[in-house]
């Protein structure tokens, strides 16, 4: 049983709430996915107060809320956003994003570690969006993080797991730390692969929200994650270079 800051999730899917064709489809997709966590953000309140209607819908979903610091480029900006999120959403959970590169949205891991330390000392439960770098992972744990969320690929790219080798190494290096593949998932097979590698959860958004049928894709992700988790727990065989006959040779009829 994996605990995320003391909380057990109903299933290992964390689902984003952005980019759906409509609020109704968002709600249906969430129910189809079975996701136990919804990521949310803070933005300037426009005329009409749309934020309040959105918040009511999230409350009705009865899921854990994971606010993000999306779009933040400095420690100061991210820390302030985290405080604002705690004020609004009433949770100490924060998905800490500190963007370092405009095109790839690669995290600025130096600032990430610093912001994680500040927020942890201030009582936050930090879910850091990071790279697959082991040393950065160590630094984040040293800063007080109890979860690591390496990217699979750049946010929204749908490329899947760009570096399965490094993610496998991360799993081996931190066997007792909850690990979440965050970002880059495009297909259910990508999500299944993350779970097969032994990751504890998958966080995705665009792959469901921008699919032609988000509700069906949400269900596909749910099933893939279940399959990947089952496969991991079933102790898969090691891949080999050469064939190994599965049908017994002994007893084969002599017909030549």
């Amino acid at each position, binding site marked *: 049983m994996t605990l995320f800051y003391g909380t057990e999730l109903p299933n290992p899917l964390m689902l*984003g*709430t*952005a*980019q*759906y064709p409509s609020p109704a489809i*968002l709600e249906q997709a969430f129910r189809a996915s079975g996701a136990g966590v919804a*990521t*949310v*953000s*803070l*933005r*300037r*309140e426009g005329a009409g*107060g*749309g*934020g*309040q209607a*959105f*918040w009511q819908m*999230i409350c009705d979903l009865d899921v854990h809320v994971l*606010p*993000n610091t*999306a779009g933040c480029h400095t420690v*100061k900006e991210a820390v*302030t956003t985290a*405080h*604002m*999120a705690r*004020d*609004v*959403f009433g949770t100490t959970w924060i998905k800490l994003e500190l963007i370092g590169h405009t095109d790839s949205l690669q995290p600025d891991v130096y600032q990430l570690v610093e912001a994680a330390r500040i927020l942890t000392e201030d009582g936050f439960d930090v879910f850091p969006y990071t790279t697959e770098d082991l040393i950065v992972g160590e630094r984040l744990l040293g800063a007080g993080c109890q979860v690591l969320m390496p990217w699979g690929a750049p*946010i*929204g790219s749908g490329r899947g797991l760009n570096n399965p080798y490094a993610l496998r190494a991360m799993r081996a290096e931190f066997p007792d730390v909850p690990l979440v593949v965050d970002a880059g998932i495009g297909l259910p097979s990508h999500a299944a692969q993350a779970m097969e590698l032994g990751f504890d959860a998958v966080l995705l*958004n*665009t792959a469901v929200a921008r699919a032609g049928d988000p509700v069906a894709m949400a269900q596909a992700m749910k099933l893939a994650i279940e399959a990947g988790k089952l496969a991991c727990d079933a102790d898969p065989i090691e891949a080999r270079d050469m064939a190994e006959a599965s049908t017994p040779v002994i007893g084969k009829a002599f017909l030549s």
Partner: protein
Amino acid sequence: MKIVLNGDTRNVSAATLADLLVECGVTGRVATAVNEDFVPAALREDHKIKDGDRIEIVAPMQGG
């Protein structure tokens, strides 16, 4: 008094941040910052605003 609210310059008469929310018709769950510093909801009543303040009011929104 002239302030910048969510990027737009506005003339307001509110004396405190709490009054400003009322004056602007903002209700529900929001968070506030003044001149890039977070101001918790519990401190809005006591937070005096002054000419030239840059005030941000944010609300729950979709996110990934």
